[in-house]
């Protein structure tokens, strides 16, 4: 198993390089120059200096200086080489915006996004699995068909719509105020609150973002679970168990469910990248200071070091998610041997 993991980790390297190269080219070849944005936006001192002298040449000089500071004046392949070299020491450079190390900014925001995503994945599985089991044990019944149609409808609900509707109708505004419209904690949140109040306040803030992040996940996953259950239910060993007189409850929950959970493990890997994408929208709408919001702001400001770092980190998370689900698959299904899995 150890050598298999090493082998898989080694295969991650070319994929990661490919991804970072793609991210690099996208950001660098696009029209528009961060130096110009910086000069126009007045992020640095260059603009004031130029205005006081009223000379365009000063602006140009400041921008050239700034470009040199960040290595933007060098040829592209050199820039990429330097970026790769720094990556080895986990140095993603400094943000164009405030010169803070990118790595610190990411570490600061990572816990929020991870918290959001872990709760969402939990919610997805907690709802989807029982729902899928129920649908599969009552196939084509009225309730199964309702669940199937319901899953379809949920799946088609655009996240931006669901979130906007929530903001308009149940987050203050002119209608109900059931949930907070922004942030992770209340404004008067204080460290000296008793722990249950802290938990309650955070749960109250997290509830809507988590539900919104997960609804299409559990709609899809419950259908997968249903299909997987139905497939296992039609197998001979289930017939044998029933013929032996095992109660239907035990047949379903013990004999069938265990085997039908196997594909659920692999699906974990395919949910992960979707959740990270979804958190861009949710974190922006609910003003949650996570990676998604950081990424969105960095993209708008052309803060390349942050964009590149987020590309790499989220691709790495996704690749590790795939690896993890492959390993888990081999753990839950002994028929699968390491290293001999077909692609």
């Amino acid at each position, binding site marked *: 198993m150890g050598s298999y993991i090493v082998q898989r980790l080694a295969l991650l390297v070319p*994929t990661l390089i490919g991804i970072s190269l793609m991210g690099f080219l996208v950001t660098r070849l696009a029209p528009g120059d961060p130096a110009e944005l910086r000069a126009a936006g007045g992020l640095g001192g260059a603009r004031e200096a130029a205005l006081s002298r009223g000379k365009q040449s000063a602006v140009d000089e400041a921008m050239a200086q700034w470009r040199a500071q960040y290595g933007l004046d060098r040829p592209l392949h050199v820039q990429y080489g330097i970026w790769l070299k720094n990556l080895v020491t986990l140095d993603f450079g400094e943000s164009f915006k405030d010169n803070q190390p990118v790595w610190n900014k990411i570490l600061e925001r990572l816990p929020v996004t991870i918290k959001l995503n872990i709760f969402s994945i939990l919610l997805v599985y907690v709802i989807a699995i029982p729902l899928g089991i129920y649908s599969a044990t009552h196939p084509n019944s009225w309730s199964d068909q309702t669940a199937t149609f319901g899953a379809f409808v949920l799946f088609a609900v655009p996240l931006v*719509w669901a979130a906007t509707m929530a903001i308009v109708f149940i987050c203050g505004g002119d209608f109900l105020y059931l949930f907070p419209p922004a942030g992770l904690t209340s404004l008067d949140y204080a460290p000296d609150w008793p722990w249950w109040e802290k938990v309650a306040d955070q749960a109250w803030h997290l509830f809507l973002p988590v539900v919104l992040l997960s609804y299409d996940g559990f709609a899809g996953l419950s259908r997968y679970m249903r299909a997987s259950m139905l497939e296992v239910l039609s197998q001979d060993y289930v017939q044998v168990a029933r013929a032996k007189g095992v109660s239907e409850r035990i047949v379903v929950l013990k004999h069938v469910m265990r085997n039908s959970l196997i594909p659920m493990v692999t699906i974990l890997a395919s*949910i992960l990248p979707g959740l990270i994408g979804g958190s861009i929208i949710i974190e922006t709408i609910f003003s949650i200071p996570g990676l998604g919001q950081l990424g969105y702001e960095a993209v708008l400001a052309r803060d390349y070091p942050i964009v590149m770092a987020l*590309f790499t980190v989220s691709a790495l998370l996704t690749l590790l998610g795939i690896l993890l689900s492959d390993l888990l698959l081999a753990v839950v299904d002994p028929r699968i041997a390491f290293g001999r899995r077909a692609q």
Partner: protein
Amino acid sequence: MSPGPSGGDTGTALGSEAGLAKTDGGGEGLWIYVWRQFKRNSLALSAFYAVCLLLLTALSADFLANDKPYYLKYRGQSYFPILRGYLVQMGLAKWPAELLNVDFKKLESEKALFPPVPYRASNIDLTAPFESPSGPHWLGTDKLGRDVMAGIIHGSRISLSIGFVAVGIALVVGVVLGALAGFFGSWVDMIISRLFEIMLSLPTFFLLITLAAVLPQSIFITMAVIGLTGWVGIGRFTRSEFLRIRNLDYVTAALALGVPNRRVMFRHILPNALAPVLVSVVLGVAGAILLESSLSFLGIGVPADTVTWGSILNEARSNTFAWWLAVFPGAAIFITVLGYYLVGEGLREALDPRLRGSR
């Protein structure tokens, strides 16, 4: 993306045999058979009609919501301003001096026949911002007094055209790469499969907003960006279909007869590989529409002065009292996406040989 509404990857295995229906079955073409199967599913069929209606709406948007009348009688002269508008755009006609840049609604005409929604999506009316749904404005107005109903009708054009063109681009890229990988195998397959893997582990949505934000704002660039980031699913379907069909006897026979590779790939294999790909194309249109609405909701991609479903929805975020700005454009996206999902699902079932003869 998260897993599809149902089935997902299993679609390949299910749909694959249906692709061969041409060769069995008493001379009945595959698509006639599929249509017959599809019609049995009343839900999918009604969704299909709804999707057609939507297409019709997009095509006739100028006749449904327009600030020009169909027919105008002015100073004893008869005009057809909407039709004339088309001719003027094409450079075949000119507006008569008295009708140039006039507001037709304020014109003292003898007779004017307006479309059901007498506004264009871009008609700004600063005297009537944030009107709630009522008399003249069926679905209300936004902060610039633009009619929401007109915005939704004209927005359907943008949504659908982005959906179709983006999926068209994805289809071409995906089919070509998948066909090359599946047909030639060995190192070609290895390189292309690595590319699939990279695209799969890329944070697609993040890549999408990065591209849409750094490139100039334009509908065409948005189409290209959505298409170029969305071909992986189609590529993988095509590859696995080609891998399977490549080893069938008729392909071996064609190759043995000396038919050139390109002809074998695109004339002999592709038609049989397309059936399962079609399902992901239909679902892809829905996906592209969803992506476009998310992009314009975030204010990137489509130019800011273009009214789209996503951009109307975005206004509701900062003006939470204007519930009509949230409800209606979102419902338009939802109904469109649901329609395409249901059609795609019906198609998947119609192509599924295991369901043949049942129901």
